[in-house]
């Protein structure tokens, strides 16, 4: 029945569950414990006498405690309310307890030498580990001190002494679950990440004291000593780390996400890390930072957008929250439109696009903006050589309504006016962007946000030609926490992108406008019924309104005719759903489906061609006005991913997806211009469609300090178009006559090695990639390289961080030159003009690209209570001053020798200094 032998304490029998009722105050307990500790060896030997009549057993137990000076612990039990009579003389405490409890089903045991535990007798035949006793002791002793967080109680502790703790990590301001937060008990090397509802579970945790660490990008870390008493729940609310963002340790994903996330080909930017990267003109740029990741490239410096795995620039879906951006570049591509200070997270899906995203063939860049701080107002900004920005955020109604706003502007004109080049003196360049976001959370279940964005670029060259383009959108989001398992998000977005191209002088002075606007509705229901299953269901509808091109005469003497092409309308609708299911500890499956439908809407004057499959100007037969649905397409898009864990730190992932794209950008230059129009799919212009597959091996080591991965991918585009030679793309009402249908393929391999921490950290990435096309009417129907094919692309980023404040960064980038079409022959016109004859399309390459950058970052001071803080980043872009070619063109020199010429846009060293400041 009892076992008081200390040597057997780890094996003796006992029962569970047991709720120990602490019946003494903390102080008394400690004093009592100390006294008992000293005299404990003799407690059981003391004999006492007593008599109790008509008293509940519970009260008798308390009297026995007093009489023998021993603590007795017991759980609530109806039997303890039974009234008894008890008289005894010269009995030990054990003998008295035996006598008292003999008419019940209760028994008692010793806990060490200073306590008795009363519990149901039938449970007293189970083995307990040392962890159990440690937990028990902790519950009786240190826990009472109240210096740490307790999880669970001893009654829920398994006999093996291991407990499972779970809970929800929430944003303290919005009460939303935080997805992907790292939950880690370092000394046990046990960790996990929160699921889409913010939930986590750690099992196999030995009872006792542990240090729990929870981290997530943009939030203050939660570091706390916890005391695990048994299975239990621990919910955590993380505060935003807005003021001390640079000071906290932040990671975009959990430390082991590269191994354990089911999606393959996801790149998440570490916003803290990119601020220390060498940067052009001192501007932190998320798009440029992605270029250092495997599989992401650009056609050259100053080019708009980016290319993912050999895809076109327009095949990337760029989202700011739920708003689609059609031009993510400022200053013709030198900067992106994202103000890094407002960004909460950036993810790039370059392989398997989740079913909730659609409408683009290759990738999704998902940029999520921060909410304003609900407690404190503060300002933040930076001053650079040609741009400056400022951010303000804070509460409007504390804990209910917050705002965040950021504004960024360039001021390059003062520099241009001082240049010695007359053309540049008569040039100007300017851009700005501004964001505002209001977040309202009337209760823990409801969250409303309204955000608006506006940006503009103006560029004039030599008072001869120029561009002007603006993006504006507003969006309203409503998130409803239906339960801990379900959250519904509704978004409504309205956006307009307007671009103009000016030719200021002469008879052909003209302004060409093209616009695209849309209204978007999206509803996404996320259900996480268990830790093993996550389900996303939703609908999405986008109505597009496209003005493909309007031309107006510009200037008094212009004789340019006015051309107005009718507005085109299209509707893209989709129903989507996916589920992520943990089949076992080592296998996770993500399976989804997106059913997309597209309609090109009338009224529309549709040109009829003699051969609809090969429309030509000469083949026009008539024009027919159509109403309703003029053309329609559907797309069934399965999205499947699977992860197989190989051990605890390695995994193999594979995925397949089908994607389609109903709107494309029209450009046949190396880089799209701001006025490159967007074209909806029509009867003659089919949507792009592709199959995408990838597989990879991922391995982390040294406690996730090192991450390595190898991915292999392939994409087959079974419908695309390319352009006929000398295509006339501007203001062309019969654009389809300039396009030819074809197919494409891309394949490659990516290697990534990252060291996430330590004084020396950084990463190396290498990409082998091919991207090819085939169109019957181009290149004699043979496969040719796309403009975005770069066979080898490698980046090395090294940071030396001797302390938290100082970082020295090195960036080395190399890539194969992109394809070009060189002249291979020549003939003379009768007047003596040499006419070059060019090779097959993209038969050669421009010279390779190589660049070395350096940066030195002096972080903020260590005094956290300082009201005004500054940090400095000094960058040297292109340290070697290498004249990397943006393009190669050919001139005819004396004796008709053709000379290749390299155009380098950034052909010298570009140092910059950025001063960042914060005002509390």
């Amino acid at each position, binding site marked *: 029945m009892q076992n008081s032998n200390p040597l057997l304490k780890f094996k003796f029998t006992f029962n569970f569950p047991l709720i120990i009722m602490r019946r003494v105050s903390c102080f008394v307990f400690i004093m009592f414990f100390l006294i008992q500790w000293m005299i404990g060896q003799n407690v059981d030997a003391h004999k006492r006498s007593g008599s109790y009549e008509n008293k509940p057993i519970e009260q008798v137990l308390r009297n026995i405690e007093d009489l023998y000076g021993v603590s007795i612990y017991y759980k609530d039990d109806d039997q303890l309310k039974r009234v008894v009579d008890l008289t005894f003389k010269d009995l030990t405490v054990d003998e008295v307890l035996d006598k008292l409890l003999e008419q019940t089903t209760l028994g008692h045991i010793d806990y060490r030498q200073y306590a008795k535990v009363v519990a149901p007798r039938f449970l007293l035949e189970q083995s307990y580990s040392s962890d159990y006793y440690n937990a028990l002791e902790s519950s009786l002793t240190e826990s009472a001190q109240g210096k740490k967080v307790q999880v669970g109680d001893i009654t829920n502790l398994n006999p093996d002494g291991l407990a499972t703790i779970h809970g929800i990590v929430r944003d303290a301001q919005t009460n939303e679950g935080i997805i992907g937060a790292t939950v880690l008990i370092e000394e046990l090397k046990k960790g996990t990440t929160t699921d889409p509802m913010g939930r986590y579970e750690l099992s196999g945790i030995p009872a006792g004291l542990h240090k729990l660490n929870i981290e997530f990008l943009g939030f203050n870390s939660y570091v706390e000593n916890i005391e695990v008493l048994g299975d239990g729940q621990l919910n955590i609310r993380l505060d935003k780390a807005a003021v001390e963002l640079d000071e906290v340790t932040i990671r975009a994903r959990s430390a082991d996400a590269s191994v354990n996330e089911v999606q393959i080909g996801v790149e998440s930017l570490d916003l803290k890390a990119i601020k220390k990267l060498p940067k052009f003109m001192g501007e932190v740029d998320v798009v440029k930072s992605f270029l250092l990741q495997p599989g992401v490239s650009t*056609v*050259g410096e100053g080019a708009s957008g980016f290319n993912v795995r050999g895809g076109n620039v327009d095949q990337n879906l760029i989202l700011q929250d739920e708003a689609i951006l059609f031009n993510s570049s400022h200053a013709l591509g030198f900067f992106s439109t994202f103000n890094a200070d407002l960004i909460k997270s950036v993810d790039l899906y370059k392989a398997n696009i989740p079913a909730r995203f659609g409408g683009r063939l290759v990738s999704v860049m998902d940029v999520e903006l921060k909410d304003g701080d609900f407690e404190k107002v503060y300002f933040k900004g930076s001053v650079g*050589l040609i741009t400056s920005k400022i951010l303000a955020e804070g509460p409007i109604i504390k804990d209910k309504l917050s705002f965040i706003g950021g504004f960024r502007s360039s001021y390059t004109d003062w*520099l241009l006016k*001082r240049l*010695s*080049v*007359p*053309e540049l003196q008569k040039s100007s360049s300017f851009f700005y962007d501004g964001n505002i976001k209001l977040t309202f959370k009337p209760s823990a279940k409801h969250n409303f946000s309204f955000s608006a964005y506006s940006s503009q670029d103006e560029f004039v060259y030599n008072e001869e030609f120029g561009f002007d383009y603006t993006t504006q959108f507003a969006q309203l989001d409503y998130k409803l926490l239906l339960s801990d398992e379900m959250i519904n998000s509704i978004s409504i977005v309205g956006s307009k992108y307007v671009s103009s191209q000016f030719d200021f002088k*002469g008879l*052909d002075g003209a302004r060409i406008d093209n616009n695209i606007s849309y209204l978007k509705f999206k509803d996404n229901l996320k259900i996480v019924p268990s830790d093993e299953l996550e389900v996303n269901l939703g609908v999405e509808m986008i109505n597009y309104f496209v003005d493909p091109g309007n031309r107006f005469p510009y200037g008094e*003497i212009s*004789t*340019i*005719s006015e051309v107005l092409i009718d507005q085109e309308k299209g509707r893209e609708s989709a129903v989507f759903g996916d589920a992520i299911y943990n089949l076992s500890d080592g296998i996770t499956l993500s399976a989804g489906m997106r059913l997309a439908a597209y309609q090109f809407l009338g009224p529309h004057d549709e040109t009829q061609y003699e051969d609809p499959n090969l429309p030509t100007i000469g083949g026009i037969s008539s024009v027919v006005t159509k109403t309703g649905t003029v053309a329609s397409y559907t797309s069934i898009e399965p999205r499947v991913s699977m992860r197989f864990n190989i051990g605890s730190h390695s995994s193999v992932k594979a995925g397949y997806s089908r994607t389609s794209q109903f709107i494309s950008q029209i450009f*046949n*230059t*190396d880089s799209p211009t701001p006025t490159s129009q967007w074209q909806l799919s029509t009867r003659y212009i089919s949507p792009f469609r592709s199959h995408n597959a990838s597989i990879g091996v991922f391995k982390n080591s040294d406690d996730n300090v090192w991450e390595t991965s190898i991915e292999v991918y392939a994409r087959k585009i079974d419908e695309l178009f390319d352009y*006929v030679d*000398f295509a006339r793309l501007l203001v062309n009402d019969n654009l389809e006559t300039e396009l030819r249908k074809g197919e494409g393929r891309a394949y490659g391999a990516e290697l990534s090695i990252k060291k996430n921490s330590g004084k020396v950290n950084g990463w190396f990435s290498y990409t082998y990639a091919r991207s090819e096309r085939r169109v019957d009417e181009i290149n004699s129907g043979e496969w040719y390289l796309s403009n975005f094919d770069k066979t080898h692309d490698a980046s090395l980023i090294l940071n030396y961080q001797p302390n938290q404040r100082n970082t020295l960064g090195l960036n080395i980038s190399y890539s194969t030159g992109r394809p070009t079409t*060189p002249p*291979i*022959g*020549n*003939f*003379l*016109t*009768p007047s*003596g*003009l040499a*006419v*070059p*004859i*060019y*090779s*097959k399309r993209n038969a*050669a390459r421009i*010279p390779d690209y190589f660049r070395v950058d350096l940066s*030195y970052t*002096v972080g903020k001071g260590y005094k956290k209570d300082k009201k005004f803080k500054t940090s400095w980043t*000094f960058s040297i872009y292109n340290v070697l001053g290498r*004249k990397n070619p*943006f*393009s190669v063109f*050919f001139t005819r020199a004396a*004796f*008709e*020798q*053709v000379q*290749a*010429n*390299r*155009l380098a*846009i950034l*052909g010298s*060293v*570009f*140092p*910059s*200094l950025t001063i960042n400041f914060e005002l509390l």
Partner: protein
Amino acid sequence: MSRGAILYVSLLVGVVSLFNPACIDPIDFDVPPGVGNSIVIQGQVVKGENSYVEIVVSRLFDFTPESRQPVNVKTVELFDTKGNEMILEPRDQGYYREVLDSSTPIQAEVGTGYSIRVLTFDGRTYESGTDVIVPVPKVRGLNVTKIVGSAVNALGQIEESERIRLSIDSDINTDQGGGQYWKIFEVFKISDSPIDADITQKTCYVTFEQLDINVLDLSILSGNIIEDYELTMKPIDFRFYEGLFFEVHQLSLSSGSFRYWSSISDLYSREGNMFDAPVGEVPSNIANVDNDKDIVFGYFYASEEEVARVKVPLSLVGNPEPYCPPDFAATVPGSDECTWGLCCDCLNTKESTLLRPSYWID
């Protein structure tokens, strides 16, 4: 490094680097194999003051002078849509030209279509499509003005300089589509300064055709006239010293031939920047009738031309430096070889003549 030092270095180097514009350098470039000995056939029928047909047959050449090869062919025939035909006689290797007048089977007429057939000695037959002469609009006048603008000097530096701007006032016919094409000639007078005392000083009239493609897309214009449309700008130099005429040949182009010349203009005017239109295969309306894989370059077109001329007033050009005599030794040291071209003998170029043009006025 202190923050002050960082700021100073950054501003100093940063500003310096910003003043360094984008740069263009010649580079070595591996050119893929050529297109072989493809034939090039270029031809035109022109209705004008002196109507003519001109055909040039050559081969593609790579980038060495030795590779240029005119091609003699067996026959070159001209056809019109009235059913007439005539065989053209060679005037030089690969060069065929005939004046078209009432004495020839074919005359150049507006509204009539023309085509050619070329038969080579190895039996290949090339035929062109038919191109119809569209009427050329009337030239209303040429204008010359002096402007000051930036230009690249001989050292490659950009500097402000005075230039002569030539522009045109003309009718246009936007209804017919196609385009307008201007060939621009400079005709200047020059008196040489022979270093050999036995040679008499001569006065020549030198005609150079400007190697630019000047085409205007009529399909994007409205109205029926263009005024002060800029054709070219020339720096003021020795050519203006004794007088210079601009001679402008305004030609009408059908939509097909306009597309051809426009494509060549695109290729020729490429600057290599990111917004340049991509290169491509210049469309030809000539094909091997027996082998469609035999790639043919060149084009045959028919047009009407109107010629207009304007003299650049000496009062406009000021006092440009004369070409002759040179202010330095015009001979190779140790020999009598003249190195100053036109100055030693103004007839040493085939574009030069002693015949005073009928329109010339001093």
